[in-house]
């Protein structure tokens, strides 16, 4: 019987079944970060240790400072944050986790950026992490799921996970995306269409011409936000681009092992005729650069549209959410979003902190100046060095951006990089929830090029107006 990519991975990892739909699954790769401390504590209270330290990978990202990093831990002034970083190192050491990319490691970075760039993330694997954006890794054709602290503790102790089998949803994006329309715009359009709970209980496979046309960086952006559609995971079938990206990375197989791995990877894509529980289609040719106006990622519209009217909402729950979002964001229905004044601009995160994202923003910023406070935090220390080798740092600095070190930074502002209350931030991150970037902060999500355009004009702007030749 023809199988989907998801089914092939799921079936291969089942150790035992329980009833029709539940299985004990083998986990190939598990990532931890500073926020994993509850799980490590529970593990220690049980008198247990990490069962498979070689399959456990640790990166410091959520609490790392993005300024004064040359000072190491001394750059952390908040005692609670310092404790998080200190505890992380102690837990990694106590459990024999040698793949430890701590604050001062040259390959430190955001967990969902480091995994792919070091080749830890590979097709056909089951990957877990105590972070909802674990769906990112699915861009390589892996089943990657975010988990809570209790499940993380179980994985640390056993390298296995009990899970209910999700349903499958294929989102096919056909057509060619117009110039200025990026992976971020495509995924925001998908979420706007299916809703923030549209993928709940499902493993999404993104397919179609516009998805295949994306680079690995773009595919990571799309899968990263599968969780914002409520999905358990997002995935894209591996292809030549995937294999070319993986070749020669630190943790990818070599020589004969590579040949063996490649054969396995090539067997993974969804078979012709395989059935999905649901199908959704979009035409990329109809898309424009997207921004969010509200406080849920589904509240996303084209930059050429106006803030919608809650009176037009399809149901009472949505209407009340929209009304509250308008109050929080200080917006009125019918206001065109192009031209809306912003106060800050932020580029980075596991969604859009990769080299291609920095290049796209720099292309807009070159020869221009930001009129608002703005900063960049590259997705990893490796990307930071690469950007510096390409001279991108000079473009950002000349444009008035603060060129910072790598970490989660203002995505959730856990490290203190927060946006002041009442200020509007043009951001490349993934969530525009109330208070996400700081108490009272107002977040507008968009692509890196759109953030750059907003920074230099001081308002939400259609980046296509600033693109060369436009």
């Amino acid at each position, binding site marked *: 019987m023809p199988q989907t990519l998801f089914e092939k991975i799921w079936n*291969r*990892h089942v*150790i*035992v079944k*329980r*009833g029709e739909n*539940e299985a*004990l699954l*083998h986990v190939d790769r598990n990532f931890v970060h500073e*926020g994993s401390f*509850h799980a490590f504590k529970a593990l220690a209270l049980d008198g247990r240790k990490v069962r498979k330290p070689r*399959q456990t990978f640790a990166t410091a990202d959520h609490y790392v400072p993005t300024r004064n990093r040359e000072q190491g831990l001394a750059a952390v002034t908040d005692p*609670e*944050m310092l*404790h*998080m970083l200190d505890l992380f190192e102690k837990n990694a050491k106590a459990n024999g986790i040698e793949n430890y990319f701590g604050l001062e490691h040259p390959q430190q970075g955001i967990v969902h950026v480091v995994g792919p760039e070091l080749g830890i993330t590979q097709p*056909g*694997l089951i990957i877990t992490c*105590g*972070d*909802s954006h*674990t769906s990112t890794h699915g861009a390589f054709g892996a089943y990657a799921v*975010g*988990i*809570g602290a*209790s*499940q993380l*503790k*179980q994985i640390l*102790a*056993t*390298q*296995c996970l*009990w899970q209910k089998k999700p349903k499958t949803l294929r989102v096919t994006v056909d057509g060619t995306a117009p110039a200025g329309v990026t992976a971020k715009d495509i995924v925001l359009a998908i979420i706007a269409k299916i809703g*923030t*709970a549209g993928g*709940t209980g499902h493993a999404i496979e993104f397919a179609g011409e516009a998805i295949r046309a994306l680079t690995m960086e773009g595919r990571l952006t799309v899968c990263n936000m599968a969780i914002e559609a409520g*999905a*358990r995971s997002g995935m894209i079938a591996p292809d030549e681009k995937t294999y070319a990206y993986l070749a020669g990375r630190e943790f990818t*197989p070599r020589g004969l*092992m590579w040949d*063996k*791995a490649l054969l*396995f990877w090539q067997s993974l894509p969804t078979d012709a005729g395989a059935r999905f529980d649901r199908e959704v289609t979009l035409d990329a040719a109809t898309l424009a650069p997207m921004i969010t106006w509200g406080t*849920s990622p589904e509240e996303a519209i084209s930059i050429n549209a106006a803030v919608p009217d809650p009176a037009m909402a399809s149901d009472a*729950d*949505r209407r*009340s*959410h929209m009304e509250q979002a308008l109050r929080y964001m200080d917006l009125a229905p019918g206001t065109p979003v192009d031209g809306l004044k912003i106060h800050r601009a932020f580029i980075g995160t596991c969604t859009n902190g990769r080299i291609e994202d920095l290049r796209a923003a720099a292309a807009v910023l070159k020869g221009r100046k930001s009129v608002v406070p703005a900063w960049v935090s590259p997705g990893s220390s490796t990307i930071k060095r690469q950007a510096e080798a390409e001279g991108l740092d000079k473009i950002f600095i000349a444009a008035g951006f603060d060129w910072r070190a790598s970490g989660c930074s203002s995505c*959730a*502002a*856990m490290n203190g990089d*927060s946006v002041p209350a009442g200020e509007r931030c043009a951001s490349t991150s993934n*969530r525009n*929830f*109330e*208070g*996400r970037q*700081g*108490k009272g902060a107002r977040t507008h999500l968009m692509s890196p090029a759109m953030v750059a355009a907003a920074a230099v004009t001081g308002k939400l702007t259609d980046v296509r107006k600033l693109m060369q030749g436009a």
Partner: protein
Amino acid sequence: MQPFTRVTAVAAPLELANIDTDKIIPARFLRRLREPGYEKLAFHDIRYDADGKDRPDFVLNQAPYRNAKILVAGANFGCGSSREAAVYVMWDYGIRSVIAPSFGDIHYGNELQNGMLPVVLPDATCQKLRQQLREKPGAQITVDLETQTVTGPDGATHRFEIDPSHKERLLKGLDDIGLVMQNIKEIEAFEKKHHAELPWLA
């Protein structure tokens, strides 16, 4: 884990849909250790004003609802981040069950892992329950896992669905880790075979 069988308690209506886990506990508090006083962080930014005073418009600040052990919420409760601290703060506040038309996937699992019962009931039923709770502040609801029923303030009973294995684990207070360890032989055999087939992953 504490077993969940049946809870009869004051229930509070939470009107908003999409109550994300950042709303249940803002990110800046996630570095706090789970110590006495942790419950004060629950729903922090919608519960207190800028000066740290109780916001009278937040339902759990209103006298009849203060001791609520059950919440009746809008759709997609607990969407967003995987933070299990969202369950810890609610548990420490005293919440034992959340009733909603739908839940964020990871949060739903996190509640189950901590002995809290997430109950899915149709949107219309949740709206009706919230209306009754607003009309009779301090009214009680019964959530019975054994019979899979919710009894509203008006005495009407609503049946809910839950996966049989989730139900069993909650009723017995079983923790997954014990269940996994029962299968250690199968796990070791699986790993041997898996890594023989895909040796670069060993």
